[in-house]
């Protein structure tokens, strides 16, 4: 299958030049009422879920590392709105939002965070390592950058099987500097693999600002030497994400090879729960929250366009809180795994 080198036909469909400015090339999508409300609901679910996780961590119910997605909700929400059944999703350790957006049950995710038997990985994986075969969610990976090659492999499998599904491979601005990212880029373009590389540029990798770690801070251009097209996207606006995702996914489905989307986003909370918060100012965080919060943005649009009233939104809020509270109830009452589970799932028993 690697022998399927770029045929002349594919070459003829020459791609658009990679973005050279900081402006998104694709204009934001126009959302219907249903789409705005759907986006609002998913993003709010992620936000409330993450707030609850943070709170439960503080109470000692969740241990180890716990990386919250608060602030970045529009990225995975817009991407999922553009994907279809069978598309594979893979990401790093900041994964709770991706799982919820893939339709994995809040109960199962939260019970995994508390390490209980009803968790998605039976309590064995924890916050950073969760999977769902049913939802085509391939993890949940703790090693920065590892998911990029894996996601490229998921695309390889789609192409090998001859289906038109794509792989949505998410990674951070920090992960973008790992060597295997470029090894993957090269093979993905060489073999025309249907993978959308979604770079979630939240401006920091732990305490390192992008400018302190990256020689090229326009991540949409990271594929240029491999001829992979890319563009920068306002990752705080779910409509912009959706429009760029539509374009990138269509490109991949048509057999043109990979596509890079740099999502310009922001993480409100610390890197994990323990964070010295000395590498950026409180004002910087507040400014993003006040001026470009992805949920507020949708909320304001819904109200302005009279897609729904305050009361309707309150009802959505209440529904979401119910889901999260039920999940918390389950995640604190479900028992820990049976001790015998220590020795299961190491190898497939034959």
């Amino acid at each position, binding site marked *: 299958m690697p022998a399927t080198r770029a045929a002349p036909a594919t070459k003829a469909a020459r791609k658009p030049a990679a973005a050279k400015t900081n402006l998104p090339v694709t204009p934001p999508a126009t959302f219907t009422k249903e789409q705005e409300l759907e986006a609002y609901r998913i993003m709010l679910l992620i936000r409330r879920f993450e707030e609850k996780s943070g709170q439960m961590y*503080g109470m000692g*119910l969740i241990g180890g590392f716990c990386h919250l997605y608060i602030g970045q909700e529009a990225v995975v929400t817009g991407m999922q709105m553009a994907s279809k059944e069978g598309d594979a999703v893979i990401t790093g350790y900041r994964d709770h939002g991706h799982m919820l957006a893939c339709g994995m049950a809040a109960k199962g995710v939260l019970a995994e965070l508390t390490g209980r038997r009803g968790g998605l990985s039976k309590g064995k994986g924890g916050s950073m390592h969760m999977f769902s075969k049913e939802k085509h969610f391939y993890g949940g990976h703790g090693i920065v950058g590892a998911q990029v090659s894996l996601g490229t492999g998921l695309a390889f499998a789609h192409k090998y099987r001859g289906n038109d599904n794509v792989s949505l491979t998410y990674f951070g601005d920090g992960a973008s*500097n790992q060597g295997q990212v470029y090894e993957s880029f090269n093979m993905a373009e060489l073999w025309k693999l249907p993978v959308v590389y979604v770079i979630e540029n939240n401006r920091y990798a732990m305490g390192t600002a992008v400018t302190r*770690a990256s020689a090229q801070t326009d991540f949409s251009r990271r594929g240029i030497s491999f001829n992979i097209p890319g563009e920068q996207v306002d990752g705080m606006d779910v409509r912009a994400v959706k429009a760029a995702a539509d374009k990138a996914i269509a490109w991949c489905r048509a057999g043109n090879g990979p596509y890079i989307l740099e999502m310009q986003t922001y993480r409100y909370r610390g890197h994990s729960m323990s964070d010295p*918060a000395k590498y950026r100012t409180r004002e910087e965080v507040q400014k993003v929250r006040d001026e470009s919060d992805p949920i507020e943005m949708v909320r304001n649009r819904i109200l302005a366009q009279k897609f729904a009233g305050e009361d309707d939104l309150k009802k959505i809020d209440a529904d979401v809180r119910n889901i999260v509270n039920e999940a918390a109830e389950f995640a604190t009452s479900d028992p*820990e795994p049976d001790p015998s*589970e220590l*020795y299961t799932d190491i190898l497939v028993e034959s």
Partner: protein
Amino acid sequence: MPVNILMPALSPTMEEGKLAKWLKKPGDAIKSGDVLAEIETDKATMEVEAVDEGVLSKILVPEGTENVKVNTPIAVIAGDVEDATASAGSEERAESAPPVVAPAAQSTGAPASAPAIPAAPKSAAPADAEIPAGTNMVTMTVREALRDAMAEEMRRDADVFVMGEEVAEYQGAYKVTQGLLQEFGAKRVIDTPITEHGFAGIGVGAAMAGLKPIVEFMTFNFAMQAIDQIVNSAAKTLYMSGGQMGCPIVFRGPNGAAARVAAQHSQDYAAWYSNIPGLKVVSPYSAADAKGLLKSAIRDPNPIIFLENEIMYGQSFEVPEIADYLVPIGKAKVARSGKDVTIVTWSIGMRYALNAAAELEKEGIDVEVIDLRTIRPMDTATIVESVKKTGRCITIEEGYPQSGVGAEIAARLMTEAFDYLDAPVIRITGKDVPMPYAANLEKLALPSIAEIVAAAKAVLYR
């Protein structure tokens, strides 16, 4: 409805902290995400964010208070009536009915971490030959000892530099390089991107050119990205160049299980690196050894793997106040003398060993504990000497059993002390499974004091 704000546990090993500063005052309106206060631990300053909406009605712990235990109520938020149904209600429920089944270790806010193994008791250690009698001792943490070792060697030799992720501006992910950037500047204390394979190779190249890099891995789990450069380039160059070109480099960072960080972040690499000719593998337990061995490692003309342990960073020990304190690489230490059974271990394994020894003493069993300190080259002589006396040996490591360091020790004893052994060597190891996340399973996956006590009785046929 009023909601208590509790002192949060913001790291897996945090038990208490200082309430450094209040950023809100009673009467202030609070919304989700507002920073309420700053707290400090030995590692970091952190912000407490509100998850509830309402009004800050009361501050229960004034700013400046030290040693505030995790989960202590620190303030009260009064929610307004509407919020009480929409938001505060749920939080309140979670709080007034704390999760019943939460395992005991979790409700303390220090989930199933090292607290499972208490800090080691002071033991009847034989006088330390490396420390002259009458030397003044100072108490410091392992973290400080490591930092001091690097700082002293950097003052002494301009070719020594440190690089790694978050080592400079952030002051180290685990604060081991605290203050180094301030003293030595950005030329010698270098933040790298997240590119382990690349910067490990850059370190090896710089060492081949004669510089003396200290390469910090945020944890050794991430050194797997770089292991080709460590094994194929650093370890083999001297041999392949017929002795012309060595590689004076130290790869250091925390190794082994931390607490609740699961399979990809909890692995012990002692056995892995100890398999490789051309490397030296060092892994200290006490702060004094951490300091003296790291200084020796930096001066050593060979590639050194220096395995630290996150849980040990905050532990305090006596460190000799000696201007240039060096501990030789390749020498084990008898940390506790005894006559009935020998326990051989290193690093955090010492905590298990000394606790088990104290336990066994109550039952009249006199344990000798050997702190290996260097895994490669291994000080077989010290182990054999001890086993000649006790006739029994137990090894402890958190790593996997197959081809582990314990297996190597057992093999050496078989060839070098067979006639002195009165019982088979027993290996206490991490279980043969990836590290699980769940608190109860994690505890089962690690060695336990009970297992060591049982092993001691078994080799003594009691």
